[in-house]
């Protein structure tokens, strides 16, 4: 099966992590060292998300069937 280009990075997981960081920092129960680490991690994740979100372009592919019935992907949409 073809792997997605985004494999390994997910906006879903990143957003979840950002939420966790906010909750931890807001709880006020983290040490200054931990807070600095969380802060740094949060900023890195934010930057990644922003890059992905602002650079992204919708990628369209169409599923095709070979003569022998195997499925393939081709770019764009063929309206024939």
């Amino acid at each position, binding site marked *: 099966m073809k792997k997605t280009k985004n494999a390994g990075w997910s906006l879903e997981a990143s957003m979840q992590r950002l939420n966790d960081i906010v909750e931890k920092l807001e709880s006020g129960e983290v040490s200054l060292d931990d807070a600095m680490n969380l802060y740094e991690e949060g900023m890195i994740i934010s930057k990644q998300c922003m890059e992905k979100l602002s650079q992204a372009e*919708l990628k369209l592919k169409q599923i095709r069937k070979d003569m022998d019935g195997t499925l393939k992907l081709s770019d764009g949409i063929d309206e024939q």
Partner: protein
Amino acid sequence: MNDAKIFSVTELTRRIKSVIETSFTRVSVQGEISNFKRHSSGHLYFTLKDEITQIQAVMWRSRAASLFFTPQDGMNVIARGNVTVYEVRGQYQIDIVELSPRGIGELQLAFERLKQKLDGEGLFDPQHKKQLPKYPRRIGIVTSPTGAAIHDIINILTRRFPCLDVLLYPVKVQGEGAAEEIVRAINDFNTFGDIELMIVGRGGGSLEDLWAFNEEIVARAIYNSKIPVVSAVGHEIDYTIADFVADFRAPTPSAAAELIVPDRREVIEYIRNFCYNNERLVENLIKSQKQRISSLLVSYVFNRPKNMLQQHNQRLDDLQRSLQQIVSHTISIKQEQYSSLHHRIISLNPAAVLKRGYAMVYRNGVVVDRVKKLQPRDNVSLHFHDGDASAEIKKGGS
């Protein structure tokens, strides 16, 4: 009657067959379907009946393929075709060329019957509904490549959340074979394409146009899909069986696109807020830590050592001061003692006495300090401050 011809069964059947088949071509008959069976060969066999009588019906696979709906028991239909005789059994039947529901009401009834049946089986139960991913990366769309639906969906996804891979599985969405193609697409997406959810749908149309989405096989394929399915069929007012069984019903294809992804601007706004709050939170944390440190610095406990030190310093200063006083006092006393001794010593210097006109008497180098120590004719020396003189004692001391 005696000269009546005696037929063989075959001859008789053939006579009947030719009479019937030439008299009942292109007939239309209206009746209710019962005993509906789809043979594995693809041919359809059923009975058409009314309150009193019934007739066998057959629809060959090639013609059945053009049906936009799957016939069901109880459905009132109009069948067009030819009456034929099946010689082997001596049975007449209608060979259907075209079959249609007797009216829109028939489709609605079929819809209700299937809905009840599937509902009874639990296919619509909320606990079977799968969660949609909040931020899908890769989605599938099962629809026509030429319809309005795919354009609407792509337009909205491009505007709203273009961070997506979209796979289109092109299918017929109406007419013959549409339901089968939709089923195959749903099944294929479960093993191919690595998608996180799929939209299954089409744009608006008549009840007949939308009928594929009311087919039982489509409903079961949606139900059996491991990947969440969003149904998006027709307009807001159109409800199909697919809508009931799907994990999520979108009223229209456009609405499906809105529903499956967040608005990118909102996500960016969220992240901006996060960055702002993140900085604020950490700044505040640092500020409060600083305050803690400075409040500790001025606290009584923290300052006790400092106070003690200051007190010791003060005490040390005091001691030093009194020590200095004592020492300088002692020195001045000693100085006074010294100077009085000095004066005394100076006053005791024999030379000074001699200067005043005295002389010292020595005999044999020894000072004679008593007159009785002298005898007549003793030779003595007289020691003046500026020199010595010799003398003889005339008369001794008594």
